[in-house]
């Protein structure tokens, strides 16, 4: 085993020496070439070529691939690692350079079929290169890489979505049956295990359900089989702790927490989103308007921040631009109202206007950007929660006040009720009541076949009366009470998120 046999590879005017053994080992192109029996396969003495001529590839791309081959294949931390680590600080131009170098590298590796290098790229997918790698994978027919990029983009959907280059890839469907990339990613986010998640300023101490080490967690997940709550391996970002009256909504399986007020100071406009796929909080663009005690509603892949304390304006957040824009405002500022999405429209019910009770049901059409008065009802409701299934809105809790001659009772503050409103037939149904519970200050979420309800505020002194964790089954119209309340705490929020399946994490 003396000196290795070297092959000269010529591209344009330059020659690159490579070990022939390594070349055959790593490159399917050269392995096939030397087996083909064609002109270039012959040794020089037998009339073969002095150099292996390549054409059409770029020199930097070829050099990277040949470096890889000369190094004998995959090395730790090779290639894309160092550049990607620069992270957010990468200048636009530098990123472009990286992108074009990446293209040249993938082309050379694809042409020469250096499978191990292409395989290595699967673990090199980053926010800075995922779109380019995805495109390259399509061009050069690399299904594994395409899959890896898709998986990455699903996990980091909103971060990818707001990149300007996404539009280049996000071409609309080419064939009738096709779905766009955006649609594919969006659908792929709705996979995993649906899990109830509770957020709040939980109190530690002996009354906590689990003996937590150190600070009590601010995020819990519910395990239905064992009926137990477990801490999520993450907490609220520090600037969200002790924020009250925020708006929350789930968009593309991100939990958004927007606005609110701090007990110590005033209203805020900041917006954060929790991504269960990465178990990370991201700060996104802040609203233009500071607001609290407003409603945040997700409709048609956008968020709408509706009203607030003495505020009638409405803002729309588009994750594609990571920006908030004002849209048509509410006719009046509203307090203690509620809103939800139903069949692509927003419905606002209840609460007070600056002068009177709000008896109107307002409907907002996002495509027309118009608020309309749908109808006026004769029951006044406030502080309720609203969720929807198909064309039915479920109104959970709140304080009912029937006007008109046949009033049932006066005010029913000490009762938890569930009513439904059909947006098509406009029919109200008084579904269920639970007299032992209060309908005020609760948080609820649609989850599986029911509405899971939890009281929002619990103080230690009255905790026994106000501990609520139950489920309204919308198909059987029945209550189901759970014993395990997550923890004592303030500012509770319950929501249903898809958490990654354990095998995938």
């Amino acid at each position: 085993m003396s000196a290795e046999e070297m092959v000269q590879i010529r591209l344009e005017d330059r020659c690159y020496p490579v070990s022939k053994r390594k070349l055959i080992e790593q490159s399917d192109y050269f392995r096939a070439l030397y087996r083909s029996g064609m002109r270039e396969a012959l040794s020089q003495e037998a009339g073969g070529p002095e150099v292996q001529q390549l054409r059409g590839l770029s020199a930097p791309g070829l050099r990277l691939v040949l470096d890889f081959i000369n190094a004998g294949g995959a090395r730790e931390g090779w290639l894309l690692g160092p550049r990607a680590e620069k992270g957010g600080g990468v200048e636009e131009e530098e990123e472009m350079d990286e992108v074009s170098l990446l293209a040249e590298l993938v082309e050379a590796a694809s042409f020469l079929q250096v499978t191990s290098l292409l395989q290595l790229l699967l673990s090199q997918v980053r926010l800075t290169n995922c779109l380019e790698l995805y495109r390259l994978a399509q061009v050069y027919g690399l299904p594994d890489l395409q899959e890896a990029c898709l998986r990455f983009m699903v996990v980091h959907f909103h971060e990818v979505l707001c990149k300007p280059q996404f539009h280049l890839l996000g071409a609309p469907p080419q064939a009738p049956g096709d779905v766009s990339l955006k649609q594919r990613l969006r659908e792929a986010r709705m996979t995993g295990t649906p899990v109830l998640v509770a957020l709040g300023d939980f109190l530690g101490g002996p009354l906590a359900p689990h003996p937590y080490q150190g600070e009590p967690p601010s995020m819990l997940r519910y395990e239905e089989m064992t009926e137990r709550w477990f801490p999520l391996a993450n907490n609220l970002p520090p600037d969200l702790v002790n924020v009250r009256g925020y708006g929350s909504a789930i968009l593309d399986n991100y939990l958004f927490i927007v606005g609110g007020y701090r007990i110590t100071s005033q209203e805020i406009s900041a917006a954060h989103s929790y991504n269960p796929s990465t178990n990370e909080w991201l700060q996104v663009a802040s609203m233009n308007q500071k607001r609290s005690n407003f409603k945040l509603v997700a409709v048609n892949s956008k968020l709408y921040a509706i009203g607030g304390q003495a505020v009638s304006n409405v803002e729309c957040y588009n994750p594609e631009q990571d920006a908030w824009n004002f849209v048509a405002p509410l006719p009046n500022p509203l307090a203690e109202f509620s809103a939800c999405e139903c069949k692509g429209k927003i419905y606002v019910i209840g609460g007070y206007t600056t002068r009177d009770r709000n008896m109107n049901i307002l409907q907002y059409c996002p495509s027309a950007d118009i608020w309309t008065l749908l109808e006026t009802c004769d029951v006044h409701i406030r502080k309720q929660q609203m969720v929807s299934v198909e064309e039915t809105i479920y109104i959970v809790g709140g304080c009912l006040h029937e006007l008109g001659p046949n009033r049932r009772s006066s005010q029913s503050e000490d009762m938890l009720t569930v009513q439904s409103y059909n947006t098509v037939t406009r029919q109200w149904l008084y579904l269920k009541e639970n007299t032992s519970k209060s309908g005020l200050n609760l948080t609820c979420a649609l989850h599986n076949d029911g509405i899971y309800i939890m009281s929002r505020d619990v103080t230690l002194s009255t905790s026994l009366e106000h501990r609520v964790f139950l489920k309204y089954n919308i198909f059987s119209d029945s209550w189901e009470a759970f014993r395990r309340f997550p923890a004592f705490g303030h500012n509770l929020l319950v929501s249903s998120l898809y958490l990654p399946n354990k095998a995938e994490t």
Partner: protein
Amino acid sequence: MEESMEEEEWGSYVAMMDDQNHNNWEAAVDGFRQPQPPPPPPSSIQAPAREPPGGQLLAVPAASVDRKGPKEGLSMGPPPPPEANGVIMMLKSCDTAAAVAKAAPAPTPSSTININTSTSKFLMNVITIEDYKSTYWPKLDGAIDQLLTQSPGDYIPISYEQIYSCVYKCVCQQHSEQMYSDLIKKITNHLERVSKELQASPPDLYIERFNIALGQYMGALQSIVPLFIYMNKFYIETKLNRDLKDDLIKLFTEHVAEKHIYSLMPLLLEAQSTPFQVTPSTMANIVKGLYTLRPEWVQMAPTLFSKFIPNILPPAVESELSEYAAEDQKLQRELIQNGFTRGDQSRKRAGDELAYNSSSACASSRGYR
């Protein structure tokens, strides 16, 4: 100097392939592409796209230059008439592409290639199906013809790099499906011709000719399959879940071997019983070849196949040891009767043995080879 001889020998075909820049003949095709489907109306997206790419990328033939002339003065004259290569998106740099995207996100290209932001020279020019048919496939067609008709071991004057590049470009430009079907059609036609020729051959040459056809085809596959590895990997394996080599071997089975097996097999059996009618190597090649093509054919002549392929017959059984011994003894008796001696049984030293037994050793070796 050898190069120039080749070029004479292989004529314009090789000359066309040997140009310094692949884009030469791509650009040249523009000349033949005058009748085109109506190009899309000029839009904002096409203005940057029409800028000719870097000088060395396109060695534009004269005819093409003339047509490109008015384009340089885009702002001076009236808008130039849409031209044939107007559809070619030559996005030179990412910046252009990004600018285009920001300016007009709505008009979206119909194929992924058009959003190409790279400077790839291979993908610079869109290969239309007409380009493929008029330029790329003929080039492959010619190379395949040569490979199919030459004898195994012959010098192959074709450049691997040239043909591979051609396949590579067609795959990257979404012509895999067409190319695969063309390749299968081409080889099917060839094999049908081979089969007809075999049918016409006289019985005494039949076995030898079948052997040649089989050998030639398998030899050709040694070169054809490597040329198409890019298509194999990125189309046949991933989209069709098959393998090119298997597919091409199957073609021989279907179009040649299956049609001839019933006339071939009796001849093989007959030849086997008549020493030296066909050389043992021919026999071995054919039997092994047939076994590769379709292992079930063993059933037609298990004894014949077992001579060349291990583990065809059931394994030896202890209870039949005496029968095996008897068989061997019978064989030895026959050998002696035919003039083969049993070899030396004495305990002479090696050197003596050589001198003593040389004649019979020669005889026996000749008998087996």
